[in-house]
């Protein structure tokens, strides 16, 4: 800080800060903070069961008692208690979420460990969790790598033609994931240009994206890399512009190879940016959901976000409780992902003081 006037010490008084920050703070508390709390509350409730009544039906051959749904009573109950019935942690441990009972059962009944893992990974929540993690695990490092290579490569071409090249490069990033995945899907579909040609090449008219789970996963992962690499590229490209020239020139004089220069001068310089990109990309990949709809891949690939979406668009009755429970567990997942960064920031903040 250049000048040590009392003003620079603490430029803005608390009261002024409050009024400046109030509108945005209110918006965030009302529409990000409260919804998280609302999700938390909803996760402890489950939708009402349908009210049933016994109906006695008599005909010349005797009387039968059958059980039918009492629609009137059900509607009344739903209107009286719209949140549903209190369920505690019931939703969290049911078959569609953590499935504690099922896992216990599998553990006791299955002979081999492999069989146990197979059965557990077929439970909806674990299936979605595994897809989400696989997606993050494959997409994030490849995005960093491809983005870095593109940045290095574009940085080496003449300045005059860089503008249009950069525009072409960032196109996959600026379209919404739904549109991006649709555009690719229409090409690799069995009736699209790439899909049809692969069928001809392999001489297998039944080969298609939907026919294999592995193929679907690979496609979505490739889509993820295609969509996110431009972001990594842009940040790395900007960072490359700030690499100091003197050490690079000294290294060239000393006879360092291109690879050595990148490894020992460029990479250490842009390291903070790499962590930034990795973090943002991890956060975005963890919420993967739209490509599953774009590729119509619901059958073989489900993510955590997709599970929530599926509960919320349920036809008969919206499964608020179930969606909320998955949401809460997704938030826990995000917290685990963010924890190392937050701890590091906090330590830096403490030492800075």
């Amino acid at each position: 800080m250049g000048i040590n006037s009392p003003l620079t010490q603490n430029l803005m008084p608390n009261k002024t800060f409050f009024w400046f920050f109030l509108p945005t703070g209110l918006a965030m508390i009302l529409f990000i903070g409260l919804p998280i709390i609302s999700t938390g509350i909803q996760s402890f409730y489950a939708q009402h069961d349908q009210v049933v009544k016994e109906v006695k039906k008599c005909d010349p051959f005797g009387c039968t008692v059958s059980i039918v749904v009492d629609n009137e009573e059900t509607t009344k109950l739903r209107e009286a208690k719209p949140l549903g019935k209190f369920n505690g942690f019931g939703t969290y441990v049911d078959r569609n979420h953590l499935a504690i009972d099922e896992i216990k059962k599998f553990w006791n009944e299955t002979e081999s460990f492999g069989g146990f893992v197979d059965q557990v990974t077929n439970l909806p929540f674990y299936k979605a969790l595994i897809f989400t993690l696989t997606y993050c695990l494959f997409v994030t490092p490849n995005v960093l790598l491809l983005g870095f290579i593109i940045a290095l490569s574009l940085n080496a071409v003449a300045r005059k033609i860089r503008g249009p090249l950069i525009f072409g490069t960032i196109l996959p990033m600026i379209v919404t994931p739904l549109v991006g995945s649709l555009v690719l899907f229409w090409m690799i579909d069995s009736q699209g240009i790439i899909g049809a040609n692969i069928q001809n090449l392999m001489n297998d008219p039944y080969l298609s994206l939907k026919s294999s789970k592995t193929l679907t996963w690979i496609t979505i992962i490739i889509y993820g890399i295609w969509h996110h690499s431009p972001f990594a590229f842009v940040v790395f490209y900007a960072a490359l512009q700030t690499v100091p020239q003197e050490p690079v020139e000294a290294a060239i004089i000393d006879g360092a190879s291109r690879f050595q220069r990148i490894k020992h001068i460029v990479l250490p310089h842009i390291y903070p940016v790499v962590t930034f990109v990795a973090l943002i990309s991890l956060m975005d990949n963890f919420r993967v959901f739209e490509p599953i709809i774009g590729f119509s891949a619901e059958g073989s690939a489900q993510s955590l976000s997709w599970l929530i979406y599926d509960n919320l668009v349920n036809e008969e009755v919206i499964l608020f409780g179930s969606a909320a429970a998955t949401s809460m567990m997704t938030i826990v997942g995000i917290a685990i992902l963010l924890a190392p960064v937050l701890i590091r920031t906090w330590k830096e903040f403490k030492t800075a003081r």
Partner: protein
Amino acid sequence: MDYGLDRKSTSLKTFNTIFIIVWLLIACFPFIWTFWGSFKVRADFFSRSDWWYAISAFNTLIETGGKFTTDAYTQAWTEGEFWKASKNTIIVTVFVVSISLFLGTLGAYALSRSTERYAFWILIAALIFRAMPHITLVSGYLFPFFQLQIWGILPTTIVVLVAINQPFTLWLLYSFFKTVPKELDESALIDGCSYFQAFRHIIMPVMWPGVITAGLFSLMLAYNDFTVTALLLNQENHTMVPKIQSYLGTNQHEGNLMWAVSAVVSATAPLFMLVMFFQRQVISGLTAGAVKG
């Protein structure tokens, strides 16, 4: 890096050129192909017998008598009510961008000028909010919105999108405000301006590049959003992206898949033009927070 000393070998240059061409092909071809295909009939763009039909326009010639047809566009915009969806998108985008910028500049200015401990924690909280998957927030909105009977209408969606957008806008504008020297507003304060006057007359005029960048990102978020608009708007008020998805759901109907194709092109073209125009701002925005580390 244009190093005077750094002479690249010809083979490396060739390799680099080939790599860039291949990458650009991967990045751009899908869009070019979709644009091309949107002027064909479905039997050509999604040909069961021969993908070459998409280029030779075999069925398009039979069905419409020309090599190109704009049927998909006219049908989607009229019968498919895409005009309504684009009208809604324009309303949502305009309001989200202006409200976001208004709230964001005030808040970010305050954050950048406060040296108190809480300013740091607010930024961290904003980072955590930024990480929340939108669908988890939506699952929190739906129930209260149904109860309050504000579900399905455009204003609700606008407010929600503004709020979801705030964390990123705050971080972005914060890093821009940090680059404006504090001495500038200090001198205004000494001259007897209030904080708001200093903000309005001294700081904002030099902040336009940052405001444009933040505005572009708000615009892209509002324009591209699917999660919030698909679940918080009723059929009547759907914006473009959920509308495109609704065309997919009914693709038993012969024409509807081509509606989706033409709708995708209609929705993407303005965005591409905008980004072409503001490319510099987009890139400076993406890197604003990052380059400082």
